[in-house]
């Protein structure tokens, strides 16, 4: 294992310290329990958005704390869910009395820990569970579809509504809507190494790819031989389209997300290939996002997310945002 680290024990703490120091105009970091808030207190009457998950997916979620998005994020250990004490401490810090909306990715550990926090919490709270990963069949035979990159889209759009005075129930409803309007699927060329484990999460041959991979390298649909970018992109989009069923001329957000180890050069190539295919199907790309937002440590790989946009979603996507990882309009 080669990583920039001093010791596995200090890995997360040092990374959080660096993040907090580098972006002190935007965020404040707290330790034991670990959580990140905006540098400025929550506006009176504004619903607070709190998300969190295992570390190793940066910039999600700490990099999405700031004006127009999250009020707080709770980072767990690498690839391990955060715990209720973190969520409760974060909620106490940022709740202005208008309630807390938890945004949770559908992974067993995250779901259970956020559920316990919600049970222990005194004030009004709701949760949005994201499950945009179309690689996993949503049936009684699985934990259900995983929450992956569309979580970023949910946080952007609901963050805007909360900023503009949306109530707790309205924020929850919009979050559920964005999630339902989104579909994602990813592919990995390489594994990734959790610092504490010291060796790769899974083995994969030089000529192989994991098709439908989750954001911890957990398997999806199948192991396959690596194909051309256009073929991979087509297969990802076919799977998403089959699930989302966008109408011809429907406006969508095309989000090409890197898993951490794939250069932007390749992500833009994927964008080009995706555009080719969507153009053929008369699906209108209204908005775009390309970059590393929901990563899996140093994994080589990418995912595509499509979100169907109506007027309401477009408005909240375009509104001002100022976080460490996303900034526009201000």
């Amino acid at each position, binding site marked *: 294992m080669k990583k920039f680290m001093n010791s596995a024990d200090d890995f997360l703490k040092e990374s959080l310290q660096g993040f907090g120091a580098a972006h002190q105009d935007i965020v404040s970091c707290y330790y034991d329990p670990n959580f990140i808030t905006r540098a400025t207190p929550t506006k009176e009457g504004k619903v607070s958005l709190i998300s969190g998950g295992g570390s190793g997916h940066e910039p999600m979620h700490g990099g999405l704390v700031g004006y127009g998005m999250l009020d707080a994020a709770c980072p767990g250990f690498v*690839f*391990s869910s955060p715990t209720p004490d973190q969520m409760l401490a974060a909620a106490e810090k940022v709740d202005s009395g208008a309630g807390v909306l938890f945004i949770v990715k559908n992974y067993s550990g995250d779901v259970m820990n956020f559920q316990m926090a919600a049970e222990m919490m005194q004030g009004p709270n709701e949760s949005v569970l994201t499950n945009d990963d179309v690689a996993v069949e949503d049936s009684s035979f699985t934990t259900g579809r995983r929450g992956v990159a569309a979580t970023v889209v949910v946080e952007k759009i609901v963050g805007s509504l909360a900023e503009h005075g949306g109530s707790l129930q309205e924020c929850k409803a919009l979050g559920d809507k964005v999630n339902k309007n989104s579909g994602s699927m990813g592919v990995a060329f390489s594994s990734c190494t959790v610092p504490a484990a010291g060796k790769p999460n899974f083995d994969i041959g030089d000529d192989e790819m994991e098709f439908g991979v989750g954001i911890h390298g957990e398997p999806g649909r199948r192991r396959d031989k690596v194909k051309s970018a256009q073929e991979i992109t087509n297969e990802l989009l076919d799977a998403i389209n089959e699930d989302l069923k966008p109408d011809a001329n429907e406006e969508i957000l095309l989000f090409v997300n890197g898993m951490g180890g794939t250069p932007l050069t390749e992500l833009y190539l994927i964008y080009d290939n995706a555009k080719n295919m969507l153009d053929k199907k008369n699906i209108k790309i209204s908005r775009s996002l390309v970059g590393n937002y929901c990563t899996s440590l140093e994994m080589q790989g990418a995912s595509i997310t499509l979100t169907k946009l109506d007027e309401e979603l477009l408005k909240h996507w375009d509104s001002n945002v100022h976080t460490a990882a996303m900034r526009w309009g201000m």
Partner: protein
Amino acid sequence: MSVDFLIETAKKIQVVINDNSSEIEKLDQEIGDGDHIFNVQRGIKLVIELEPTIKDLIMSKALNQIAMKVLSGIGGSSGALFGTLFMTMAKGNSIDEGIDYKKAIEIFAEGVEAVKQRGKADVGEKTMMDVLIPVSNCLKKGVEDDKDLKEILKEAVEVAEKGMFSTKDLLATKGRASFLGERARGHIDPGARSSQLMIKTVCESVINS
């Protein structure tokens, strides 16, 4: 059952888990994400480190401290599930007035039921519940049938082992292994293995006492 017993048993569990750590890690790498063993080891270490804080506490408070420590210190599913187990045991009826083996079995069974609710997993889903639920049922039945304690515990050790091995041929329907579909078959669930080892250690330490 005393607070001392809890701490002494945690120390025995630490030895057994450490002795089997590479096996558990390997099982988890086959069908999970490889961090289960670190979570379990961290949790046990944190419980043992609580000794000076809890050794003079009444049982409900000691169990509650263990619950909060496990919950916040482990994280992930293991933290929530083990935290739920201890938190529920801490709420056991009149436990501060002393715990005989019947009481211990009663609160353990209540804890297992709460874990089942939390994780929404039952027997047959390739999780640690394939060990905990049969063990809990076996213990309760033993008390109902008025069997000798050592007999009950010996049976529980066997039931735990059987439950652990049963996960091998199961399809996972809960947790990360569920994403593997058919690929999970043929692998023992790491959570079932670690909980089987813990059950075995607890039971044997009572049998040999």
